[in-house]
């Protein structure tokens, strides 16, 4: 009898707000320690929280994107535990009445039918500070304390590390589409805790779970799950028992280690936060937010295939990043040539972005410039090789493609007389190739075209050259 793993994820996402969850301090990243602090986020005597309405809106917006139910009434609670990075030694969170309930994330693994991973809930809470350890002492930076965090809790609804990975990728994509947060794992504004248990395939109950906290790379989560599943199976097969515990993933050793067991688990002593009023929403408010939602990535992929006639693979690549998708659609509309737009972006653009570690928003090639370049090729003004040079120039320095073509003298030669002379010269200079061609070696024609292009410094229209060679030799 084989084993089946059951995986649930709790994903924390920092919301894109100007100010913290309960005070006016900045959420800016990278400031000197303890410069974005005030009596409220330092937990001074008498200071009180005031709710950031924008954070509530962004959480509900995420919930709407993920198909959650939005209750009209939700509330905040105090979650008590002592830790030096917690200014009040309780965290304001949501216990039993979160902002969003249910919902799901669609995933599609290769070779498997698509499925929806169910969500339990999404709630809003405040982040804690950051402990720092020095040689002689420790300190806490409270700049991050009070930053709004949204926690997305999945059902224990995944069974393989690959599913968990696909879930995280799809979730991140949707949240980026919703523009609720930067979801930048390196900056720590997206991280997750994984819950994992294994059981015999025919078991009616889930096995005892372990929780691995604070995974800050998707790859780490994947490897931690692989390791943990193997460890649990090995333990059980060896006659051992899994204890409910919190474990830590060490990326250096690629192993998990026990941090604390259930016996010393926290009793958080939740109770309703008396300093905040409950969140009461109206149907009209939720409808207004719903009306302002962007398209979901999956819907967009389908529409792009339909509207632009591009292959599903292209649509998936282009829609993976919302801003790349937006860029593509703008270029396709302006140039009227969706296939060429897709080709330019998928090959040249994404390659250069990857090489230079740039975001599409930082790119110098304007929508107008790329559409213009496509037009020059379509009208035969520029051959595809020269177009690549122009693109490289646009990518490096920006500008107008027409002007670059003029400045570099790249206008394609399509004058029959001029080309005829060049072709004749190439035939005369390469009798062996002519012989080969006549003996059925079509490759020889390509060689002759290459010779013409070389002599013309790439300006000859290669299609015309090819046709002319065939005509003159047959």
């Amino acid at each position, binding site marked *: 009898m084989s084993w089946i793993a059951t995986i649930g994820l709790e994903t924390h996402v920092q919301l894109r707000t100007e100010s913290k969850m309960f005070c006016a301090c900045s959420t800016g990243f990278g400031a000197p320690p303890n410069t974005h602090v005030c009596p409220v986020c*330092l937990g*001074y005597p008498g200071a009180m929280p005031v709710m950031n309405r924008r954070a509530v809106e962004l959480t509900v917006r995420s919930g709407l994107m993920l198909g959650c139910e939005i209750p009209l009434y939700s509330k905040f609670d105090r979650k008590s535990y*002592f830790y030096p990075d917690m200014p009040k030694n*309780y965290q304001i969170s949501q216990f039993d009445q979160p902002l969003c309930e249910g919902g799901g994330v669609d995933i599609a693994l290769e070779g498997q039918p698509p499925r929806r991973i169910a969500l339990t809930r999404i709630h809003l809470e405040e982040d804690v500070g950051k402990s720092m350890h020095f040689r002689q002492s420790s300190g806490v930076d409270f700049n991050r304390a009070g930053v709004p965090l949204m926690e997305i809790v999945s059902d224990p609804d995944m069974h393989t590390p690959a599913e968990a990975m696909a879930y995280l990728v799809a979730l991140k994509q949707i949240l980026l589409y919703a523009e609720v947060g930067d979801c930048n794992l390196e900056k720590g504004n997206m991280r997750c805790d994984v819950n994992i248990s294994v059981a015999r395939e025919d078991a009616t109950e889930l096995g005892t779970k372990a929780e691995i906290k604070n995974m800050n790379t998707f790859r780490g989560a994947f490897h931690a799950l692989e390791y943990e599943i193997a460890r649990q199976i090995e333990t059980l097969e060896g006659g051992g028992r899994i204890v409910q515990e919190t474990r830590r993933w060490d990326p250096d050793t690629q192993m998990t280690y026990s941090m604390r067991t259930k016996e010393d688990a926290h009793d958080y002593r939740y109770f309703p936060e008396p300093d905040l*009023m409950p969140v009461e929403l109206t149907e009209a408010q939720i409808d207004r937010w719903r009306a302002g939602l962007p398209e979901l990535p999956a819907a967009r992929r389908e529409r792009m295939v339909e509207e632009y006639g591009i292959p599903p693979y292209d649509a998936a690549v282009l829609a993976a990043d919302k801003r790349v998708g937006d860029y593509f659609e703008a270029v396709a509309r302006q140039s009227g040539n969706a296939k060429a737009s897709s080709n330019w972006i998928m090959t040249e653009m994404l390659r250069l972005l990857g090489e230079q570690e740039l975001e599409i928003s930082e790119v110098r090639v304007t929508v107008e410039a790329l559409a213009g370049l496509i037009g020059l090729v379509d009208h035969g003004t520029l051959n595809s090789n020269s177009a690549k040079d122009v693109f490289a120039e646009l990518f490096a320095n920006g500008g107008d493609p027409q002007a670059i073509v003029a400045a570099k003298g790249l206008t394609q030669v399509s004058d029959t007389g001029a080309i005829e002379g060049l072709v004749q010269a190439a035939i005369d200079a390469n009798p062996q190739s002519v012989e080969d061609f006549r003996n059925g070696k079509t490759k020889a024609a390509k060689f002759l075209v290459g010779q013409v292009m070389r002599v013309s410094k790439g300006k000859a229209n290669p299609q015309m050259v090819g046709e002319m060679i065939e005509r003159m030799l047959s």
Partner: protein
Amino acid sequence: MDNESMGFNFNSLTVHALQEQLQSGATTSVEAVTSLLAAIAERDGELKAYVTLDAEDALAQAAEADRRRADGEDAPLLGIPLAIKDVLNVTGQPCTCGSHILQGYIAPYDATAIAKLRQAGAVFVGRTNMDEFAMGGTTENSSLQVTHNPHDLDRVPGGSSGGSAAAVGGGIAVAALGSDTGGSIRQPASFCGCVGLKPTYGRISRYGLTAFASSLDQIGPMTHDVRDAALLLGAMAGVDPMDSSSVDCPVPDYTAALSGDLKGMTLGLPQEYFVKGVDPEVESAVRAAVARCRELGAEIREVSLPHTEYAIATYYVIATAEASANLARFDGVRYGRRAEGATDPIDMYGKTRAQGFGPEVKRRIILGTYVLSGGYHDAYYLTAQKVRTLIRRDFEQAFEECDALLSPVTPTPAYKIGEKVNDPLQMYLGDMFTATANLAGICGLSVPCGTTAAGLPVGLQIMGPAFGEEQILRVGHAYEQAEAGS
């Protein structure tokens, strides 16, 4: 015992009387504050009402007030000296909350109530003693000093705002601020013979009031007469964006409600507040006050608040639960006192809190932690919340037929110092007539209504519906004026 100094009699000098003298130019704020400081120097040695006096700062504020007046300004409290319970944050001043754990803490900001009073021109003279973190009814739980009742130095001033009550009642403050979570303004006011007002929950911003029990705490004035309470309430009331529990309800001119008669008013006597266990002298003083109100035109009616007997248990569950979280922040990490010699953060918490908190605070933190803990939460905390709703409904029903309710403030007058220190349960029962108003979120006023044969003051409690401060101030004022004129 008459603190006369440069013509001021601080035993009776009211805010409104001093206001007139300042407006007419008969005196200056610097003169008033100088002689008040002299009175404090003379009397506070035995009362021990103040924990911090910053004479230099007080005189500088007074001089500033006089300058503002010379410039033609006439803010409502311009130049009026006030004593502040040591639980409110005042920029640049300590705020010990009567605890060792806040040793060395200097407030970096003004509580909203303080900022409003500052705006209105008030001068903050000193900070008054209190039970540690407002937990207690005698001020004996202060870690700093024991305050004495001005009417009998062997007795407690009440608490937790005992320092403010002793200062006003003892003639070494013109008026003071207190805070009331279960009676902490009204009870010491009744013990010390002054007026104490606990406003409706949400009437005055709690921002900057160090929290004991967030859903019960309110700031309020402690004064020589009802008019002063009305004046100070008006200066502090109003919605505050920094306190989400403050209510956006118009702030009337409370002094305009002080008509001097009670014609057309119906006053209720909750039968559960006139029971065995109430000291006979207290009961007769309160009954006499009720008779006086009838003479002034009020209709008196018996009412019932049937869930009163559960109030103390309910109060102690909710208040301690909230306190256990509110006091978790005092850990020595960011401010206040930090224990030496700790081996790790958790050890530091343990040592800091063990050394920093007194026994009553520890008792309540443990109780509150227990009632919220897994397996007990529903039986205690949730049940208490349900009973709280029933208590609130009792009052709503009573206020359907009454404009205000009259009762004793406490079952007994002030006790001897040390008398109840070892009997916390007995002490908790002293809150039974006052904690209900906090649970229901309504307002309550304590007005002196005579003394016992031994000369100890007795207080009349006047409770009103939420945002019914005008009604209870009107009743208190009419009664007070009638007594003064008789």
